[in-house]
């Protein structure tokens, strides 16, 4: 399990069709640049890991997960195509790294998300309980 700190960020790479229409030379360059970028970040200790994701998967929803659909839609600007796990000084550094993504000039989108210490739902539940308690003792 990972140790969560305030300096952990996830980069989510969105869009899995931006490579369409690129010339072989452009493609070769962008994938080579991407691998070199990943390896440099790891060597610098700023990226702890990452994966590309298979285009095809399943989406599970409904009570007891009764609905299992193929998905996500294979061709989408929103679909998540992979991620990097970053450990950096602050949000500014995470954004700076995201801006170096070689796919950006072809339309890839990078979402930068802080890794939370506590699940937001749990936090809301705790805050709610506290306010309930405060109301009860007031």
């Amino acid at each position, binding site marked *: 399990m990972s140790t969560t700190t305030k300096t952990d960020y996830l980069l989510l790479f969105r869009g899995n069709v931006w490579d369409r229409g690129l010339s072989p030379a452009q493609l070769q360059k962008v994938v080579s640049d991407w691998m070199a970028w990943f390896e440099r970040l790891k060597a610098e200790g700023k990226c702890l890991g990452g994966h*590309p994701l298979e285009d095809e998967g399943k989406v599970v929803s409904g009570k007891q997960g009764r609905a299992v659909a193929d998905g996500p839609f294979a061709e989408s600007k929103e679909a998540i195509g992979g991620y990097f796990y970053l450990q950096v000084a602050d949000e500014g550094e995470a954004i700076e790294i995201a801006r170096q993504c070689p796919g950006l000039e072809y339309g890839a989108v990078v979402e930068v998300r802080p890794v939370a210490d506590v699940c937001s739902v749990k936090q809301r539940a705790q805050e709610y309980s506290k306010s309930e308690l405060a109301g009860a003792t007031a």
Partner: protein
Amino acid sequence: MLLFRGPHWDRELSTDELQQTMDKVMAWFEGLNERGRIKAAQPLGGQGRVITGTDGRFVVDGPFTETKEAVGGYLLLQADSLDEAVEIARSMPTLRYGISVEVRPILAECPIFRRHPELVRRDTDPAAEELWITAAA
């Protein structure tokens, strides 16, 4: 990888219901962990940024985590097959409150190489290879 979408499923629940559900979620999580199924898992904070454009010239606040599509957390699962991963996803206790779980196989190699077999794949060192296929642990 399981991506949990729709992080605001708890809005309409009473405190009791929420407490019970969170207990179930924690038990679900611990059960998977005891079976050695979890390689990594974390909730994601609502405050983020979305970066687009050449040289990342556009940086905006986002994503809107109010939506049902927003990713609220992830779980990197060790499963033998997509079917097994789907079975595990189906046992997630908060599905009944409207979340969805996206189940995506992870790849050792960028799918662009598969779509474009003409590309030359530059050799990488084995340690770097390993990082592509192990969790951010």
